[in-house]
C-alpha cells in the first residue's frame, strides 16, 4: 500500500501575526491514497491544504510534492501548481467565461495548447464530470453542484498528480452534494491521489484510506476511518464526533 510518498510535509508551522494556525504538522500522503482531514473550524485544516500548493506561505517547515521542494525559491511554482489540482469551497469559477472557457484557460496559458486542442481536452474533462452539455453555459446559469463539478473539471483537465479539496460540498444545498461526491468517487476509482478537507463523514467512511483529526493547529489522531470513527482515542475527537451527530 505505502508506495513512495507523493506529498511529504514536515513540521509545518504557520502564524498569522500572534495567532498560531499550524503548530508543527506532518502530513505524508502515498500515491493513490485518499486522505481525509476533519476537525472543528479554526483547527488549521484548510490552511494546511493551502500550504501544500503555496497559496499560503508556511512560516517554517518543509514540503515536497512529487519530488519537488515546494518552498524552494528556485522552484517554478506555476509549473508545480499545474500538477496539484485544487477545488475550493466557493467554486471560484470565472464568472465572465463559459464552463468550457473556465476549463480551457490554463490549458492554453499554462500548458500552452492551441485553442482547438485545449477546447477538445476541456470538453472531455467536462464529459468526465457529466457536464458535456453545459460547455457553453456561464457559471451564473449553473446550479451550485454543476459549478463545483466544472471546478473539478478545471483542475482535472491539467492531469494533476494530486488533488486537494477544500470543503468542496460545504457551500452546496444538501440535494446537490451527491453529484459532487459521485465525481470525487470516480476520481478515486481512477487512482487519483486526493487530500480532502470535509465534513462528509459517510463519504470518508466509505472512500478514505486514512483520516486525520486536527485541532488547535496539530494532528491529534489519525488512522483508517473504521478505527477513528469506531474507537476514537482522544477526548477531543470524541467530543467533535458527538457535535457532528447532533446536527
Amino acid at each position: 500500500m505505502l508506495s513512495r510518498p507523493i506529498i511529504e510535509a514536515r513540521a509545518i508551522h504557520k502564524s498569522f501575526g500572534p495567532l498560531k494556525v499550524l503548530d508543527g504538522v506532518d502530513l505524508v500522503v502515498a500515491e493513490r491514497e485518499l486522505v481525509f482531514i476533519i476537525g472543528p473550524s479554526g483547527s488549521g485544516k484548510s490552511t494546511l491544504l493551502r500550504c501544500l500548493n503555496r497559496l499560503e506561505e508556511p512560516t517554517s517547515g518543509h514540503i515536497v510534492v512529487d519530488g519537488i521542494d515546494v518552498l524552494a525559491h528556485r522552484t517554478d511554482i506555476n509549473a508545480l501548481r499545474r500538477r496539484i489540482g485544487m477545488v475550493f469551497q466557493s467554486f471560484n469559477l470565472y464568472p465572465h467565461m463559459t464552463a468550457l472557457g473556465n476549463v480551457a484557460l490554463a490549458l492554453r496559458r499554462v500548458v500552452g495548447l492551441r485553442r482547438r486542442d485545449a477546447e477538445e481536452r476541456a470538453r472531455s474533462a467536462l464529459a468526465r464530470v457529466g457536464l458535456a452539455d453545459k460547455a457553453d453555459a456561464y457559471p451564473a446559469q449553473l446550479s451550485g453542484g454543476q459549478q463545483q463539478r466544472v471546478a473539478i473539471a478545471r483542475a482535472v483537465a491539467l492531469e494533476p498528480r494530486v488533488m486537494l479539496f477544500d470543503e468542496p460540498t460545504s457551500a452546496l444545498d444538501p440535494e446537490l452534494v451527491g453529484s459532487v461526491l459521485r465525481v470525487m468517487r470516480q476520481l478515486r476509482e481512477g487512482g487519483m491521489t486526493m487530500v480532502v478537507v470535509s465534513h462528509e463523514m459517510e463519504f470518508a467512511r466509505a472512500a478514505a484510506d486514512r483520516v486525520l483529526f486536527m485541532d488547535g493547529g496539530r494532528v491529534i489522531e489519525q488512522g483508517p476511518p473504521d478505527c477513528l470513527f469506531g474507537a476514537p482515542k482522544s477526548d477531543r475527537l470524541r467530543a467533535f464526533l458527538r457535535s457532528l451527530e447532533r446536527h
Partner: protein
Amino acid sequence: MSGWELFLFSFLNLRVIAEYLPSIAAGFLLTVQLAALIIASGLALGLLLAVLRSLGSLVLSFAIVLFVDLFRAIPPLVLIVLLYFGLPNLGFAPSGFVCTWVVLALVLAAFAEEIVWAGILSVPRGQWEAARSTGLGFFATLRCVVLPQALRLAIAPLTNRTIAITKGTALGSVVAVSEILAQASAGVSFSSNPSPLTLGALAYLVLFAPMVLLARRIERRFAWRR
C-alpha cells in the same frame, strides 16, 4: 425688429454663421484630435498605473496614490496655466495644445487609475487563488481573470469620467489653442455678434452628446453588476 427677430439676429445670424463656419470647423477638427489624444494616452496610463499598483510594492503604491491625489485635488485649468506660462522660465515653451493634452491626460490617468483599481479590489480573492492554483502566473491571472471582471465594473464610471475630463479641451482656449471655443470667441469679437458662440456650443454638442448617450446605454447595460 421684434424681440424674436432680434434674438434670431443675435444668436442665429445665418450670415455671421456662414462666415465663421470654416474656422469653427477647423476648431472642431483640432478639438477632436486633442480629445482623441487625451483619451488614448490618459486611459492607457491610468490602466498601467492600476496594474503597477496591483504588484503590491509599498513604495510604488505610495507614489501612485500621491500622483492620483495631486491630480484629483488641483483644478486642471490651474495646471494648464502653470505649465503654459511657467515653463518658458526654464527656457522650454511647449504649445498650449501640448500643455492642455499633457495636463488633461494626466488628470484622466489619475481618475482612471482610481476607478480601475477599485474594480481590481472588488474581484474576490478566490478568483486569484483559483487561477494561481491552476498554474497561471501573476500577469496571466491579472490579464485573463481579474482585469476582465474589474473593467466590467469600471466601464460605466470610466465613460462618465472620460467625458467630463475630455470636455476640458475647452480650457485650451485660455492658452491659445484654436479649438472650438477659441475660434467662436474670436468670431464674436470680430463680428460683434454672438452667433459664432451658438455655433460653437452646437459643435460641442455634436462631439459630446453621442458620448453622453453612449454612457447612458453602458450604464443601463452594466447595471446588474452593482
